[in-house]
C-alpha cells in the first residue's frame, strides 16, 4: 500500500512544506512596516465598505452547486459503464447495456430540460 499511496503523500507533504517554509522566509525577509488604519481596511476601490463582506448573495450559486452535484454523480455512473461497454459488446450483450444507459441518461436529460424550462439556468 505504501507503494501507491507513498508518492502521493510525499508530493502533498512536499508542496505543503514548500509553501509553509517559503511564506515563513518571505515574512522574515520583507520589510516590517507598522500597519496604519487605512491600510488594514479591506480594499474596496477607495471607499471604505459600509457593510460586512458577508452580505446577501444570490441563491443562484447554491442552485448551481446542487445541480452540479446531480450531474456530477451522473457522470460518475457513466465512467464504469464506459469502461466495460466494449467488453459487453464483445460478449454480445451490447444492446442490453446500451439501452440501460440510454434510459439512465434520458431520465437526466429530462431533468436538464426541466431546469432549462424552469429558467433555473438563467442568470439575470
Amino acid at each position, binding site marked *: *500500500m505504501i507503494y501507491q499511496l507513498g508518492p502521493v503523500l510525499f508530493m502533498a507533504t512536499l508542496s505543503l512544506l514548500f509553501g509553509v517554509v517559503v511564506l515563513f522566509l518571505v515574512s522574515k525577509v520583507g520589510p516590517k512596516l507598522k500597519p496604519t488604519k487605512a491600510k488594514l481596511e479591506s480594499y474596496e476601490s477607495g471607499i471604505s465598505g459600509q457593510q460586512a463582506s458577508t452580505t446577501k448573495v*444570490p441563491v443562484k450559486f447554491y442552485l448551481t*452547486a446542487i445541480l452540479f*452535484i446531480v450531474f456530477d454523480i*451522473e457522470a460518475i455512473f457513466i465512467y464504469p459503464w464506459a*469502461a466495460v461497454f466494449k467488453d*459487453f459488446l464483445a460478449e454480445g450483450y451490447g444492446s442490453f447495456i446500451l439501452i440501460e444507459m440510454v434510459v*439512465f441518461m434520458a431520465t437526466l436529460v429530462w431533468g436538464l430540460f426541466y431546469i432549462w424550462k424552469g429558467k433555473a439556468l438563467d442568470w439575470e
Partner: protein
Amino acid sequence: MTSTVLFYLLQFLILASALGVVLIPNPIYCALMLAVSMIGISALFFSLEAYFVAGVQLIVYAGAVMVLFVMVIMLFNLKNEVVAFSKGLLSKVLKVSLSVLIFALIASSLSMSFADLNSSQLQPYESAMRSVKELSALLFTKYIFAFEAISILLILVVVGAVSLARAKGGTHASDK
C-alpha cells in the same frame, strides 16, 4: 511496517478532523475539517487498492458536496441558526435521539456485514482496471434496478432544489 504506520496515521487524521467538525464552534472551519476528513477517507480507500472508489470519494464528496457546504456557509451568516439549534429541550432531545439512531444504524449494518464477510473468499484483483470492470459488471446486471432508480432519485433532487430556490421569500423571490 511502514504500511501499518501509514494506516494508523491516516486513521488518526480522519478521526481528528471528524472530531474537529463536532468540537470547533466556527462553521466554516467545521466544513473544512469535514473536507479534510473526506480526503483522508479517500486516501484510505486508495491505500486499500480501491482506486476507483477513492477517486469517486474525491470527486463527489470532497469536490462537490463539501464545496456546496462551504459555499452555503459562506453565503449565509449562520449565527442565528446556530443559536436556535443549540438551545431548548426539544432540540436537545432531538439531537440525542438522532445520534443514538445513527449509531444504531451504523453498528447494526457493521455487524450484519461482518456476518456476511468471509475473509477466505477475498482475493485481490490482478489490476485496478479489473476491479472497476467487476464493479460495473455487478452494477449494470445484478443491481440494474438500483442503478435506474438512482436516476429517478437524482431527478427528484433537481426538482426539489429548483422549486426551493424559486420559492417566495428567498433572495430571488419569484421574479415577475
